[in-house]
């Protein structure tokens, strides 16, 4: 097992329209798109949402493959949703085996549910694949800025998030290293029952926590040395600025939601 191969909210550098879009635009568009998805009722509206998504994927140039690969961890959830919808939707029965029955409505509902989840995940992937984590946190901090007036520690939260993102690869690497070191002393992380496995984790988790605390300590001092004193009076290297593509993006997003809402009104 290689922990290093795990991808977490990975970013694929690029220069597509989506990459160049302001992170705030992308965040808002993602929210708009998810809203649109939940308004979708029927083949036509789903089709429309799908076309928009497919176009976005094509424009982003991240490739369908990387999106499919990212789906792997959620396959179980998708299957479970499909099965539940398939067997538990009441309606016109078309097949029956014991207490299991499949209805026409169940078929449709399962298909739509799966489609909805896939599209939802794809659209969030698009966001993280085309936006560097640092821009993402910048965008979030900026969008949530008004909450500062309500004493929500927006800057602190954003800083924590970006530091977490910075240290995930480091800690994964460290986990790998400690595991190897303990294996060299005969530790066995793979066999035995649940209790045994949990016990086997102690020699991994204790050093990992100690090291994480040490890192946090050193990082805090290093940040202070570089004059960090909270969000007050802070400027940024990169200033977020809306450009024409952002306005075009907003327009598209609002149009989509409006279209889906209208379609819904007519039961489509």
């Amino acid at each position, binding site marked *: 097992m290689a922990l290093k191969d795990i991808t977490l909210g990975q970013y694929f550098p690029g220069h597509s329209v989506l990459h160049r879009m302001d992170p705030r635009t992308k965040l808002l568009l993602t929210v708009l798109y998810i809203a649109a998805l939940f308004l979708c009722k029927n083949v036509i509206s789903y089709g429309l949402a799908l076309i928009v998504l497919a176009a976005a994927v094509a424009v982003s140039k991240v490739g369908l493959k990387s999106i499919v690969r990212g789906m792997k961890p959620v396959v179980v959830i998708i299957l479970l949703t499909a099965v539940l919808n398939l067997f538990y939707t009441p309606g016109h029965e078309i097949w029956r085996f014991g207490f299991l029955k499949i209805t026409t409505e169940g078929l449709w509902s399962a298909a739509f549910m799966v489609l909805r989840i896939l599209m939802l995940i794809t659209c969030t992937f698009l966001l993280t694949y085309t936006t560097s984590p640092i821009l993402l946190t910048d965008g979030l901090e900026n969008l949530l800025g008004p909450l500062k007036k309500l004493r929500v520690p927006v800057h602190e939260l954003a800083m924590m998030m970006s530091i977490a993102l910075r240290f995930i690869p480091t800690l994964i690497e460290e986990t790998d*290293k400690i595991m*190897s070191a303990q294996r*060299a002393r005969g530790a066995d992380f793979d066999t035995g029952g649940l209790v045994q496995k949990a016990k086997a984790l102690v020699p991994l988790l204790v050093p990992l926590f100690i090291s994480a605390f040490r890192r946090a300590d050193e990082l805090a001092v290093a940040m202070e040395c570089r004059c960090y004193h909270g969000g007050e009076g802070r400027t940024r290297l990169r200033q977020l600025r809306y450009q024409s593509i952002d306005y075009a993006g907003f327009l598209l997003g609002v149009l989509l939601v409006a279209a889906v809402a209208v379609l819904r009104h007519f039961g489509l």
Partner: protein
Amino acid sequence: MEPILQTQKLSHVYSAGTPFQRAALTDVDLDIYPGEYLGIIGHTGSGKSTLIQHLNGLLKPTEGKVLFRGQDIWESKERTRQTRFHVGLVFQYPEYQLFEETIYKDISFGPRNMGLDEAEIDRRVREAAHFVGLRDEQLERSPFELSGGQKRRVAIAGVIAMEPEVLILDEPTAGLDPIGVEQILGNIRDYHEAHGATIILVSHSMEEVARTVDRLVVVNDGVIPFQGAPREVFQHGDELEAMGLGVPQMTRVFHQLRAMGVDIDASVYTIEQARRAIRDYRSRKGAR
């Protein structure tokens, strides 16, 4: 003599089949003999860490074999596990793997995993602790109260307590001050002599390997370009320099001296050899 550890056409590829595919070792043949003190040098990313992790079965060869006492260590699951006890590996900065409440418990982790009885575990823990200069009354203390150098010695004791026939140490002196370096190298030498164990010392300090090892293996770009007695290996000064390794300072000084036209033996690599060479030269000239 039969080698105790052997690699045959050993190759390792990381993340095979992905865009991040990277060959770390290519067709490495290496024989390691019982009781020898071997040095492995190479810069970061040369493949030396990958190589040593194959020697005790932590990494599985992509191709080729690793033999311990003539038997493939991947023959069965049990054999792989046993190999880890015969071939002890001390990682870089091993102090970061300590986890138990007391030094005693931490050192006993390896022997306990071997399934030994309490009396034997106790004997081994005390003996290993003794090798690294820990006193009996220290054993019930928490390892986290110790200084950096002491923690490292506890971690090394944790591997020594398994009484491996081959002890591999990945840069055991990294980041220590001169006293700390001498203590660790002394502990390793003691174990080497008391158990007749094979020692493999991975280092990037030329001066350090020059004065400790019998034989030197250079790893670069996943292959072994040179191996042999330090004296022979250090003849390849320019090539070593190009690999980002260089030669010991004494070798550089004596090469310089030769270049200045002094007819002196330039295969010198320790201070002691340097003094001898100077003495020899002077008595040769003085006698004439």
